[in-house]
């Protein structure tokens, strides 16, 4: 619709929008995060949801204890190889559309524990991540920023695209859960969604 006409109509008290605009507006302003934390980042996540930083301003304060009721997974903390299958399982149990924020150095890459025998080198090896926030741990402002970034990302969805996206989501929900092997997870990453970038020669 023509922007000029839109504003003229608005002056006359008529509000116009697109269906997908309305859809996205609804989605982005009521993100329900899954309530779980894995390490110290979770403390920052809790701080973000409390009075001082007030995540409720962004409509994302309803932390749900069940993945069936959540549409945002904040992976807050170190994902150990022992924990990774459970994280993937929780992700699979969330209904679409669903979003993932990888919070902190550990969740995005393994962080200070990257070469540990027991730590997964980034949750994006197993589930698709929408927003990565660096930091150790990231401050509540950074988490708020990631929520805003995610909201912007949601705004850019169109309904037609959404259908395609939901199809993709359906595929994603069939992400295999890794099993524990003798040394590492099997598989160690999901090649469908993660490929090692080429090593940079010094």
């Amino acid at each position, binding site marked *: 619709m023509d922007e000029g006409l839109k504003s003229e109509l608005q002056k006359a008290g008529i509000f116009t929008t697109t269906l997908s605009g309305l859809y996205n507006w609804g989605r982005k302003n009521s993100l329900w995060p899954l309530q779980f934390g894995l390490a110290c980042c979770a403390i920052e996540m809790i701080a973000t949801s409390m009075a001082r930083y007030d995540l409720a301003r962004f409509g994302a304060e309803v932390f749900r204890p069940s993945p069936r009721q959540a549409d945002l997974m904040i992976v807050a903390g170190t994902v150990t190889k*022992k924990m990774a299958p459970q994280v993937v399982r929780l992700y699979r149990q969330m209904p679409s559309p669903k979003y993932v924020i990888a919070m902190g150095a550990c969740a995005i890459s393994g962080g200070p524990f990257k070469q540990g025998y*027991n730590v997964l080198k980034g949750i994006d090896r197993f589930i698709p991540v929408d927003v990565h926030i660096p930091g150790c741990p990231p401050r509540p402002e950074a988490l708020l920023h990631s929520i805003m970034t995610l909201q912007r990302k949601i705004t850019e969805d169109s309904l037609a695209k959404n259908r395609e996206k939901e199809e993709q989501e359906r595929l994603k929900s069939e992400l295999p859960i890794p099993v*524990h092997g003798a*040394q590492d997870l099997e598989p160690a990453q999901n090649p469908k969604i993660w490929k*090692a970038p080429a*090593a*940079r*020669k010094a």
Partner: protein
Amino acid sequence: MENEKAILPEVQQIADAINAAVKNAGVTVSINPSPAEQHSLLLFPTKARECAQWLKAESPWQLDYLSNVSGNDWPEDAITKQTPKQPVKDAGEEPMHPCLEAVYHLYSIRQSLGPIIIRMRTENRSDKVELPSLTPIWRSAELQEREIFDLYGIHFEGHPDLRRLLMWDEFEDHPMRRDYVEPDDYDYEPTPHGDVLKKSLTQQEGTV
């Protein structure tokens, strides 16, 4: 505090007392030459539970509180190339044999003294890695002995529930042993340099 130092018994005195009270206990003192001077009691594994029971219930020190259990790995290298240039010795006599070691830190709440440290050593690092569990005596050893079993591979006999604690059940190694070889999974390094760069390049060539 002066008072505390006064009631802190000399380790040798405790060793003698155990040897007098428990038949064939064979307790020796393991000297710590560092400034900390935390000498410890080296228990004979087959007699360890008897000695521990005596220390807890009947001894004048009443060691009723087990604060910490930790593991040690002593491969050949670590014994011969120890940093305080001399090789590690038991009570200044024979050189130590390669082994795995469990170290228990004990206190007495009733008499407010401690820590008193006891150690047990396995026969070797490969097939004779059994030690008696002290969980039946100090219940607080349960999880820590499981952790040592997990990370060092000491089998505590008589432990009520000896399973891995930190690693998953299917894992097949003991990562805190000094000869543990980490998995070669340097597939992606954002800022590689030195050895890590070499490993990361060879790994990528291998997979492509």
